[in-house]
């Protein structure tokens, strides 16, 4: 098998207010089921030191992470190469239960926006209250950026990680470049 190639080959840009980088392939699994059940909890977190996130939240540690997507859906994140093993574990954990675990790693791209103006660059595109009091690391938001679906969390207080569809990675990257154009400081946060 070839080396996995992410949508934008890991390009980055730092000509504007923030640094924009496409991160390489990342393992992602959509896990649907009864989030209150122990099977789902086990499927999502077994083998990690993570707990289950509440609505609007993500629990992250290194490559691993679990994000709350909807009342019956989680996004489990891991290293790209771990996906098959994790899927196998999940399938085992949910044996006999009504649940779905499916690999979506290649269907997505992850783009990082970092810098002190990261909040305002993202706020130009997403209808989300991104003031430091309202959105903090540990939170996770499914939303849109301009015309496409996106989800993001804060890796630290000045870094966003944005998940978008792979086919739209170029669009999202270019959008962020426009939103970060020099001279477009907002100074709102």
């Amino acid at each position: 098998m070839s080396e996995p190639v992410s949508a934008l080959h890991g390009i980055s840009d730092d000509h504007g207010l923030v640094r924009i980088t496409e991160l390489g392939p990342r393992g992602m699994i959509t896990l649907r089921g009864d989030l209150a059940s122990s099977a789902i909890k086990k499927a999502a977190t077994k083998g990690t030191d993570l707990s289950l996130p509440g609505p609007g939240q993500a629990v992250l540690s290194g490559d691993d992470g679990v994000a709350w997507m909807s009342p019956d859906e989680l996004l489990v994140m891991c290293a790209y190469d771990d996906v098959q093993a994790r899927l196998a574990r999940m399938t085992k954990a949910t044996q006999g239960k009504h649940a779905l675990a499916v690999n979506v790693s290649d269907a997505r791209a992850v783009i990082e926006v970092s810098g002190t103006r990261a909040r305002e660059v993202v706020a130009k595109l997403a209808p989300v209250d991104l003031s430091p009091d309202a959105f903090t690391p540990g939170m996770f938001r499914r939303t849109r950026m301009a015309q496409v679906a996106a989800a993001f969390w804060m890796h630290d207080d000045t870094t966003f990680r944005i998940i978008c569809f792979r086919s739209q990675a170029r669009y999202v990257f270019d959008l962020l470049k426009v939103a970060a154009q020099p001279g477009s400081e907002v100074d709102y946060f």
Partner: protein
Amino acid sequence: MSTRLATGGRLLSKDKALSFTFNGRRLRGFSGDTLASALLANDQMLVGRSFKYHRPRGIVASGAEEPNGLVNMGEGGRFEPNQRITTTELFDGLTATSQNHWPSLDFDVGAINSKLARFLPAGFYYKMFIHPRPLWKHVYEPIIRRSAGLGRAPTAPDADTYEHFHAFCDVLVIGGGVAGLQAAKAAARSGARVLVLEQTPHWGGRAPVDGGTVDGKPVDKFVEELVSELADMPNVTLRNRTMGAGVYDHGYVLGYEQLGDHAPEKPGPRHRLWRIRAGHVLTATGAIERPLPFAGNDVPGVMLASAVRDYVVNYGVSPGDRTVVVTNNDNAYLTAIALKYAGLSVPAILDARVLPTDSPAMEQAKALGIRVLMGHAVSSVKGGKRVTGVAVCSQSGEGAVLEEIACDVVAMSGGWSPVVHLWSHCGGKLLWDETQAHFRPDVDKAPIGADGHGFVTPAGCANGVMQLDAILADAVQAGEIACAAAGFRARHSDAPTAEPSGETPMTPVWMMPQGAGIKLRSKAWLDYQNDVKVSDVQLAAQEGFESVEHAKRYTTLGMATDQGKLSNINGLATLAAARNVAIPQVGTTTFRPPYTPISMGAIGGEARGDVFQPLRRTPMHDWHAANGAEWEPVGHWRRPYAYRRSGESTHEAVMREVRNTRDKLGLLDASTLGKIVVKGPDAPRFLDMLYTNMMSTLKPGKCRYGLMCSENGFLIDDGVVARIDDDTFLCHTTTGGAERIHQHMEEWLQTEWWDWKVHVANVTEQYAQIAVVGPNARTALERLGGMDVGKDALGFMDWAEGTLGGFAVRVYRISFSGELSYEIAVDASHGQAFWDALMVVGADLGAMPYGTECLHILRAEKGFIMIGDETDGTVIPQDLGLDWAISKKKEDYLGKRAQARSHMADPTRWKLVGLETEDGSVLPDGAYAVAAGENANGQRNTQGRVTSTYHSPTLDRGIAMGLVLHGPDRMGEVLEFPRLDGTTVKAKIVSPVFYDPQGEKQNV
């Protein structure tokens, strides 16, 4: 003449001179000037021509309400028409030209219309051009359209960029005058997040010009301290040059920030559209002075009294040497006093009121030696392109001239109207205030939010509170109401105290003089920009346009770019008088956002150029681009239409791709096809409901083609379903259908079958999918090796998982071309590498990529339908001869009941057939087959239409599919299809399967 004064101009930096041009003339101004004040400083009072009569028009106002001062700004990619000079900040190098005249501003041929005014009354166009009917479209309308309009349309692409910004706050204050600032402070003391928007570059609104003292300090000092106090509060954001443009449901407000208009050399976006969610909205939008309706009130030099003192105080500009003030209130006396202090002459104040004793303002004016004429009015204004004097009369008379006073400016004031626009945008109601003769917000009928409570609170002048001391108290109260409404506890602090002004009430004046005859009334303008006069509104009333909304449209009152900011109240008072009803009975027209026009660029935001649309790209997109792909948009995807080689036309490329795929080996990027995983114990039952055919009987390892219908029976999608295991299916959809069908599934699961155990996930983009098609397909895959793709191991309509060339793959033995064909799914991150591997092993097998047009021809030769070609939302599977894919055994499926309705079972529904032209040519797409006779509209009757049509290189002739009345029963009959060029082409009805009807080629 108007000129720059030696002193004054509180907003100017006189050490910073700027140069600009107007109609090519090089002029000078100062930093801090508006274009209007700089033009006045250069004695340029005449700034444009009116819309209809091409009357000379001068500057009337000093702010957003200006109707006349609209110019073409900039050049090339920065050219923009209809820019308001009173709100345009001067910058070095600004270029502007006046509008709506030919050949020049000073001499305009169109002014002949003014002489014809008697023949161009309200509704002129409607009356004049209605007969004869056909002339309207071909003669009248083109001429009228050419003569209409103010500025020119830009021709070059916009050189600037724009953006949006999503902001959230607890209290949004619109307006940075004393009321807005004081209210912001009152709200911010609670800890609420407060955002203050001010449309101008300056804080304090009118107060610094109009004067007064607050807490013993001059009001401008008070404003300065208040702004710096607010700026220091961490929970307060102040934005000037940002207009509150519109208030919408749920506390949604649009703000319009002009970042680059005053400094075009600055990098960054020109405008920013603020998309604000506010807990509560506070409108402190001030008030606008009303003109007085007297004859000749549109002659350049007739200005609002407040504007005259703004130009004197703010910009150190004298609009003229001699100013006659005409008023019905005390406020305009401030203008006379300001002019006097600036050393200018005020020959008289004509006050329409008759007061028992002098008001304090009158006393002050008289003390300065100004002649005050009570009960007097302007009979008419003298002058053409500039005021030369006024004829004075009694307000209560019919205009008999008592004396003439020479002057070059008339400063008029008809009272003040609160800016209720933003209050009204989302449904706030208004009250008529008799004393002040204006509409103000009815605070008991505020716009209602989602919680059933009002979400807008007005403050200050915008609330009809007109005196400084009362404004401050009202602002504190409004600020406390606003923060409480946003969920904070107000921390009360007493309002600062201002010295009461002791104004004597105004007297409404809706016509000057009161008994003006038709001659004067037809020279008394209400709407300057659209040329609507008092006589026009009266005519509208006389002709039965009683509703203010009808009268507005009939006369065009308030329909210009200023949306009637100066004309509305005078207009509806005129209408009320003409109808002999009270003003509140007439009511107002509807206030709609935006408050003043905002740029299209700001609305579009970042969506231009590369990011105009979110184009979707497959993992092999770059390869396609590098190999001659011509793109076809399919949804937001870009798919290769054909791969053109050098020296080839697109048509030749398509023909080559078809022949090569039929003869050798074609590769298609099919990654865009939708792929939806459906899993759960109820998944078989769920799919039986979604598809017309039976899916629950499909065995794991097998594929089946299926049709999906809406609950109305119409075909909405098709595709191949693969059963992965007992509980799991993978449903392929059309390229454009992936998101729609995923949503369709979720909707049924969430609303109707919420208790069924089914999960769905859209995994379309997880896979790169490649169709390997043609006689050499198997050989190519065998060369990659890793799994058995032979006929016995992987028969037609089987699928298998395995590896090929070291890639983990899922292989589907399905065919949309009629050839031996495999569709191979590989993780998207390996898609390009797998494609490359196929090109390598296929090199000597004739491997070539093919595009969507080739795909279409291959499927049409086989008679396979395409969603969107053979279907259009009105077609059911039975129309397409797909009865074999409709299960008779199932009790129900979506669409079953609808398909049993009489018109769905009607044997006269047009049905799918093949069409073969007699001369071998290609039928025009969408062409209709004509039948005998005409329908009720006098059109030819029809009996069928073309749904797909191509040149088939395989058969070397045109082939087509179409829907034809009783088509399948009419094999061999010849139909006539008229072409657009008037000729007719004949085509024979044949089977839609043109190629390999037995299916031998795909099943090898």
